[in-house]
């Protein structure tokens, strides 16, 4: 890979990774906020209202971060991937422009109203503004994943003689078979992050013996939403996506599962092992026979194509990264389900608030759903390589023809430095909000 392509990809990977720390929380958290506000309308217990407003403060910090780190994402399509934008902008421009129009304005207008307008509007309208913020953030996710789905599995296009992709069926963009599974998987995963954050803040308050009443509410709500969403991430949505990858991107499927050789009969599922790219095998492998064939095709003996069946230039160019990303995601997802089922059990027995080791675990679990979400996206994006538009447009073709690698490295370093500062700010702001707690200040 030449320098230019490497720096372009690294800069995009770095900036999108940092960006996606924020939307994955806001999408799920907005649903929890709507839930708290709805509980308040039904019960008229002030605690729920304070919970909604407390989490909207955290939402607002994340939204701000999402906006400032999101602008560079959109710009980079043009700055670093000009050829890609020129060739495919006629298609992916549609969902991206729609995102701006139908989601950002909705989200930002009603966020301001939710935060500043409670007294001016009354409770029912206040609930409505919260709901519209939720709607805006989910519509945003929908359009972004519609864009990505087209890159993973292009539909509704024509290719002109000059290489440009032209849209000829608008509705195909939104009936793409890749879209709905990917969207539901992503939203469920986003709900995992936010329920774990809510549960973790709850565990923190209980362990610290401060705001205990809220701590219990947060923990309870977080665990209930957490157990449901953790299960949904795996089944049916995760399963559905894996089948899509097997069907539409078999080379990526072989790479992420770590299948180097095509075996006769059923394929094994790899639990642990390190890809050895020189000898084309997995080192220190632990695997269970035939499971992968069954999970993918409901047939214990169905053959699954290994990487040896594909030409080198059609395989993802970083197999170990793809393999690890996938196994980290699946491994963490499994651990989440175990911890959440255990927590839900003790919640049902009404013992959870006194089991300190479990509270500690829940409190420190927070970084892991973020890692799982990000590695999930790495699986999708590394698996798509070496293409920008799967099977049709190679990544190396998409770069800006006039930007030199020195300039890209310069801007990459700038982003790294600036985002470190931004990350620090984020931690300070969220930390301060958690420290102040959900009890309203007395003026």
């Amino acid at each position, binding site marked *: 890979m030449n320098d230019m392509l490497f720096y372009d990809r690294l800069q995009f990977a770095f900036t999108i990774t940092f960006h996606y720390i924020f939307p994955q929380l806001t999408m799920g958290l907005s649903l929890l906020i709507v839930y708290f506000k709805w509980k308040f309308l039904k019960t008229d217990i002030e605690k729920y209202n304070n919970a909604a407003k407390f989490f909207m403060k955290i939402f607002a910090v994340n939204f701000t971060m999402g906006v400032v780190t999101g602008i560079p994402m959109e710009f980079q399509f043009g700055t670093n991937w*000009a050829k890609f934008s*020129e060739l495919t*902008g006629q298609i992916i421009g*549609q969902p991206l*422009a729609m995102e701006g129009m139908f989601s*950002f304005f909705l989200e930002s*207008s009603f966020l*301001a109203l939710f935060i500043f307008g409670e007294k001016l509007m009354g409770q029912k309208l206040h609930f409505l503004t919260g709901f519209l913020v939720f709607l805006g953030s989910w519509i945003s996710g929908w359009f972004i994943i519609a864009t990505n789905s087209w890159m993973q599995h292009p539909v509704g296009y024509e290719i002109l003689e000059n290489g440009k992709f032209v*849209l000829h069926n608008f509705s195909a963009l939104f009936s793409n078979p890749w879209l709905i599974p990917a969207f539901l998987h992503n939203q469920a995963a986003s709900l995992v992050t936010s329920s774990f954050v809510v549960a973790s803040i709850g565990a923190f308050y209980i362990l610290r013996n401060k705001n205990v009443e809220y701590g219990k509410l947060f923990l309870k709500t977080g665990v209930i939403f957490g157990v449901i969403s953790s299960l949904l991430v795996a089944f049916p949505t995760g399963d559905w996506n894996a089948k899509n990858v097997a069907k539409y991107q078999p080379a990526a499927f072989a790479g992420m599962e770590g299948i180097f050789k095509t075996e006769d009969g059923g394929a094994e599922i790899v639990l642990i092992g390190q890809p050895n790219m020189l000898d084309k095998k997995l080192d220190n492998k632990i695997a269970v026979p035939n499971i992968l064939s069954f999970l993918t095709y409901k047939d214990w003996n169905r053959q699954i194509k290994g990487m040896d069946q594909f030409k080198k230039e059609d395989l993802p160019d970083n197999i170990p990264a793809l393999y690890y990303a996938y196994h980290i995601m699946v491994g963490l997802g499994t651990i989440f389900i175990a911890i959440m089922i255990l927590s839900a059990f003790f919640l049902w027995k009404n013992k959870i608030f006194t089991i300190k080791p479990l509270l500690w675990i829940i409190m420190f679990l927070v970084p892991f759903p973020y890692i799982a979400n990000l590695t999930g996206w790495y699986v999708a994006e590394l698996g798509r390589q070496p293409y920008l538009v799967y099977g049709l447009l190679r990544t190396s073709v998409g770069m800006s*023809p006039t930007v030199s690698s020195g300039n890209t490295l310069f801007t990459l370093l700038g982003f790294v430095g600036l985002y470190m500062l931004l990350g620090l700010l984020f931690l300070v702001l969220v930390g301060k909000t958690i420290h102040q707690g959900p009890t309203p200040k007395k003026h």
Partner: protein
Amino acid sequence: MEIYWYLIIAVVLAIFFILDGYDFGVGIIHLFFAEKEKDKEIIAKAAGLFWDSNEVWLVAGGGMLFMAFPTLYSSAFSGFYLPLIIVLWLIVFRAIGLEFRGQFSYNIWTAFWDKAFGVSSLLLALFFGIALGNVVRGVNLGGVENGVSLFESHYFFLPLWNSSFSPLSESPGVIDWFTIIIGLISVVTLAIHGATWIILKTNASINNRLKSVIFKLNIVLLILTIFSLIVWEIVKPNSLNNFMDKPYLVIFPIIYFVGLFGLFFIKKLKKDIYAFVFSTLIILGGITSSLASLFPVVLPSTNNINESLTIYNTATSNYGLSVAMGWSILGLILLFIYFVVQKRILAGKIDDMDYGNH
């Protein structure tokens, strides 16, 4: 169809400059004129409460440009690589300043982040003006050297500057004496605009003083405008042709001058909103006049080999444009509703209201 999208995107970007423009302007005023601690806080709040929803317009405008004119988007964004990324950094840094300043109440803490907010606002205003100057002046499309194109005809790459700093050289940089003049006009205009916003939205103690500041800045702006019109003729000799062919386009420069002359009466205006309307007219008129002088060109070529980029040779297919026209009409109606709802609920001076903590 191309014209519909050209107008929509022009309107969205003009709204962005009007809205985010006032909070850049607030930053400039904050940097030079806010002295008392209480003023600093309330003035920062006049930007801090609104900047993120204002910047949403930039994202929306960018998305639409991408969809409707992908060739222009990819050409301009890669060609203006460095200035664009620097603008992104400034946007992020400014936001950090605004959000950080109130977190701790040490004197040097707020002082530092206030400066960060002020300086990055100033630089952003300058860069956006320079950007407009570049679009007017044109670029070396195709990267022509000695009569040979180094790139495809619609691609280019601009250094930040070249040694001559001249807009008339074969391959001008981003910053030259012409674009600097437009940049300064932008800084002065946005400073005025920020000041009228502060007067409209706050009870800061410097509001009366700001009125004389606006008056003085307005004189500077008038001088700079006249000067820029002269050099404009040197850099772009045919820039008046469009106005001669289509006399109704003269409405745009008239809007500009109505705003400019209106503000000379700043001390006699009965309502604060009038001053804000006048400064809005200056921005609106300035952007639309520049675009009108180029139309249908959107990025002129400075060489004779490669033709300028126009809305016609950079647009998406007709099918794409017409589908998008359908959804955009729905979108614009929704947008109008949000806007009215929000402005009605959040009207008034910010320090009179209980906005809570942001």
